[in-house]
């Protein structure tokens, strides 16, 4: 028994094809975000940007091919609890994620 078919194992997905590649997605709490910019600086793949009027800037995920690796370092650095990962990366074919659940913070009770 195998979890991926032979055909899947051979299939290499194309990263800018939305049907084959899904990158991480973050949720932003617009009430909490004060546009301090820290997450945009820390983000390893540089996929976050500020937008909006000068004194009321907020952060968002960039449009187009934004290769978020779901590391959640943006959440770790945010002092206002305004950003967190909600969807992790996943690909078609050989790199399909298997046997894992949605991202959660450290648990002490089960």
């Amino acid at each position, binding site marked *: 028994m195998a979890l991926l078919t032979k055909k899947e194992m*051979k299939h*290499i*997905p*194309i*990263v*800018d094809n939305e049907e084959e*590649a899904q990158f991480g997605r973050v949720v932003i709490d617009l009430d909490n975000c004060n546009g301090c910019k*820290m997450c945009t*600086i*820390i983000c*390893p*793949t*540089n996929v976050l940007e500020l937008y909006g009027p000068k004194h009321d800037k907020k952060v968002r995920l960039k449009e187009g*091919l934004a*290769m978020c*690796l779901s*590391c*959640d*370092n943006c*959440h*770790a*650095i*945010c*002092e206002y609890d305004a950003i*967190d*990962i909600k969807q*992790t*990366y996943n*690909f078609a074919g*050989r*790199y399909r*994620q298997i*046997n*894992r*659940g*949605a*991202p*959660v*913070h*450290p648990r*002490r*009770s*089960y």
Partner: protein
Amino acid sequence: MSDAAQNIVETDDLEQADQRPARKAKPGELEEGAPWNTIEEAFLKRRSIRKFKKKQVPAHLIRRVLEIGRFAPSQGNCQPWKFVVVRDRQMITEMEDFCAGMCKKISVPLDYTLHKKGTFARWRSETFLKLFAKWRPNTMHPIPFGAVSLIAQDRFKVFHHAPTIIIPLMDTRGIGHPQVDLGIVGTNLVMAAHSLGLGTCWVGLSSFLNDSPEWRERLGVEEPYELLEAISVGYVLGKPMENTVARETHETLWIEDGKKELFY
């Protein structure tokens, strides 16, 4: 009874012999939901750091980190490692330029995202990439592919301008799976550095150095050693290590009392 059999100590004997008062709560005595202890918290709050202060880390702190590395477990106690520490800014810049140059070189034929869909150049790069990925599927996973692409466009760094680079070299003659031992010794280094308030980042993209005769010579990488990974070390910019992060749960098969259960 043979001598060997007499030497066998039963677990019960050991438990009776161990009458010293416990210094810490035993795991079984800790109630569910108890706060994380300092070691657990250290693991939860360690992050990969990619923004460092310019200031160099004192040599004695790096020595201290390496000292913790020495006590990592390894298969058969074979300790299949030695270390290279690079602290000359000029040399780190040259390492950066070399690895970034390699990313540029490979992304010319392979990075199809640079070409418009439907063009010949696009088709050619996609075909190359797929062939390459069949040969080296772990290297050409979309995430490192993305990193190589960003580096080639000068939008990402290999060593993140860290002031110190620790390179654990692997002795390929190690017992069993020396790559596992290299990962463990690296974890010791990373967690020791973290406990001292230093930031670290593993750098898999450093392995280009292993394939270059010039860099092998400059870094003293000789048979039977190999350079698989490097670890950037420096003072952390900002406060990226005060919160936890969310991560996926992983399937766990739990076998007990003749039953099998799955949890995540």
